[in-house]
């Protein structure tokens, strides 16, 4: 999987309440949720995000609630991958389970600036800041988790098991 897009830069502890505020949780429709993605941290996000764009953030991205609406909203907004120094663990699970690619790289998260063009090769874990020419390597997923992602997410894995 290869992605290329413009980076939208945020700080540490970006929580699920600012990714998708609870006042919109009375629906689970991805398109509806996408209309309010990042609303309480960056009110202009929805207007500026383009398909293929990338979110970059510091430590503990996605902390707070277990709402899967958060990765769903990010994915539906057009963002292809989130790069962060670290992820909150429920968000990490949810992203894997719902098929939102995420990459852990403190070096990349520190160096990439807002508006940089960034290319990501999820298979090799290579992150290239095309604007500056810097190249970084993300932590690879353990094989077990890679299996879930490549198999099409957790539900696909369960479907296979149920069918047996």
């Amino acid at each position: 999987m290869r992605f290329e897009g413009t980076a939208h830069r945020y700080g540490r502890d970006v929580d699920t309440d600012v990714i998708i505020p609870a006042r919109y949780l009375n629906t689970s429709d991805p398109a509806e949720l996408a209309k309010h993605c990042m609303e309480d941290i960056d009110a202009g996000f929805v207007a500026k995000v383009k398909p293929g764009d990338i979110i970059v953030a510091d430590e503990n991205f996605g902390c707070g609630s277990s709402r899967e609406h958060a990765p769903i909203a990010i994915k539906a907004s057009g963002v292809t991958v989130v790069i962060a120094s670290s992820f909150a663990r429920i968000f990490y699970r949810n992203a894997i389970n719902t098929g939102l690619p995420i990459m852990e790289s403190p070096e990349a998260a520190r160096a990439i600036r807002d508006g940089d063009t960034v290319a990501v090769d999820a298979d090799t874990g290579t992150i290239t800041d095309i604007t500056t020419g810097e190249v970084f390597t993300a932590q690879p997923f353990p094989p077990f988790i890679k299996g879930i992602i490549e198999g099409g997410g957790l539900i696909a894995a369960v479907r296979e098991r149920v069918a047996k």
Partner: protein
Amino acid sequence: MPRPMTITEKILAAHAGRESVEPGQLIECSLDIVLANDVTAPIAIREFAATGAGSVWDPTKVALVPDHYTPNKDIKSAEQAKIVRDFAHAQGITHYWEVGCMGVEHALLPEQGVVGPGDVIIGADSHTCTYGALGAFATGVGSTDAAAGMATGTAWFKVPSSLKFEVTGKLQPWVSGKDLILHIIGMIGVDGALYQAMEFTGDTIASLGMDDRFTICNMAIEAGGKSGIIAFDETTRAYVEGRAERAWTVYESDADAVYDKVYRIDAAAIEPTVAFPHLPSNTKLVRDSRHVNVDQVVIGSCTNGRIEDLRIAAGVLKGRTVDPRVRTIVIPATQAIWKQAMHEGLFDIFVDAGAAVSTPTCGPCLGGHMGILAAGERAFATTNRNFVGRMGDPTSEVYLGSPAVAAATAVAGHIALPDDLD
């Protein structure tokens, strides 16, 4: 001999059918309970349908609690709640509670004996970690994990390493489990326990009642923890006896179990604590916070909406009235707590003080309904999160603290200690 293990490792090993496990290992565990609520269950139900399983693995082991936007806030929430209700009835789910029996999930499940010591529980709600207070492994997951759990009765976990918090000594007056956990979060930060299990031990913890223990484990997630846990003891036994619906198993950490880090905390040094906006780790002492005026006080939630919390708040409010500028909302977390509070005369105290008493709901805790903040308003709440926009407008603010401080704040009109009121 298996390697020495922590209580968390032992519970996970037993549920994975292994003699031992170690941190970092990826394992599959059998589950005792899978939980979801009216926000997370609709997605879980949609994903469950996609698994092709047809029926849940065990209708007595799935718990569905419509607590966030109920009694239904608006048409959209009514539709979400209906999806959950229809699914519960179609699947013959035994642990489903309608408005009138419903309570805030993390107060309700332990109270009803649905979760017990030694269990492995996943819940599509981050505060599922609350049940660790019973000596169980309980952790929050997303809706898709809950769907897979409902279909198969299993979940995959990476075995967490553990942090040990050894708390010793006597807590000062007006210092509660809430102050203790806020103190710890302030000390280690909102990612201080990322991917780790937080084990709370020591004579201070042993001296606490179950309600304080639930409060402590409830907020493990606010430090990024995967779970919080307190080992079974006589207090736990007294709570679960006659309540637990299944036989329970007691586990305890080996003396030579390995921890990533051991924190030794002197309980006597902890003072009443408040978390300022916009992170639970942004803690200050209540005595340094008296300059903060508030527009609303909320006493309730899965963190501090239990009977002991209401008793403490009532003790402070008795014979007093709240500041006329402070909207004070008391929300007993379950119907049983509501009834108990009514019998004990706590409602007379609240109502005479000028506070509103609500039916059980999450309501304002997540900015859902029943007390939403306007732009620039401030609330003091006994809840667990104070993120931007958590209780309403993105420019509003939430301060977190104990029921005693919340009640004193309601009377004073600004953040205050109960002793300030005399």
